[in-house]
């Protein structure tokens, strides 16, 4: 288990290698990496600043991870989320889940991303040619999270 909230970049290959090192009971690893796009809502984005609520962020991510482990048989879970200033192409978030079975790995990885988008206290400020703007929450993210309601 690992939850990390950090300003620094991360290395997907190194994280994957550490995540699976020495494991022989894992049948599948599902991963998702979220990146800064250079366009959003039809407008060019030159940079993005991620604000978060230190303390609450870690707390929420830990709760989300616990919930994922309750729902699926997981060998391990990794969540890394960055904050601070990022540019197009930069990595924002990485989620990895390992399980004996691929369905559990896929579903828990998507569950974590969906909940992270609606529960973890992060806010994105985009820099565009018209100035800075706070990204608005999407109904589609709420709908995605609602899929997992028990």
């Amino acid at each position: 288990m690992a939850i990390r909230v950090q300003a620094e970049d991360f290395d997907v290959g190194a994280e994957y290698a550490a995540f699976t090192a020495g494991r022989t009971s894992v049948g599948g690893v599902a991963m998702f990496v979220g990146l800064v796009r250079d366009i959003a809502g039809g407008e060019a984005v030159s940079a993005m600043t991620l604000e978060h609520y230190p303390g609450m962020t870690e707390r929420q991510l830990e709760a989300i991870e616990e919930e994922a482990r309750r729902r699926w048989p997981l060998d391990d879970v990794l969540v890394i989320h960055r904050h601070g200033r990022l540019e197009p192409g930069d990595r924002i978030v990485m989620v990895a889940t390992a399980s004996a079975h691929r369905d559990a790995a896929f579903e828990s990885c998507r569950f974590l991303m969906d909940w992270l988008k609606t529960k973890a206290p992060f806010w994105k400020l985009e820099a565009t040619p018209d100035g800075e703007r706070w990204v608005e929450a999407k109904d589609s993210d709420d709908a995605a999270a609602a899929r997992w309601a028990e």
Partner: protein
Amino acid sequence: MKILYFAWLRSKIGVPTETVDLPAEVATAGDLVEWLKTRSPRHAEALANSKVVKVAVNQEHVPYDHPIAATDEVALFPPVTGG
């Protein structure tokens, strides 16, 4: 009580945090949002649409009818947009 603001709530209100003395009649998260609106025109404008003002008490998301106490850490913020 210490109150934290994030994202555009922070920039509209103009401070990241403030300490307030709550009147006795402010008993819930919803009461707090209403009461904060009376503190200044900036507060009133920032908090005008309660649909987009979320409240966390002691770092947990709570509904507006959640009780609050003077020793709580309370945060107000817009819907989250991470990930």
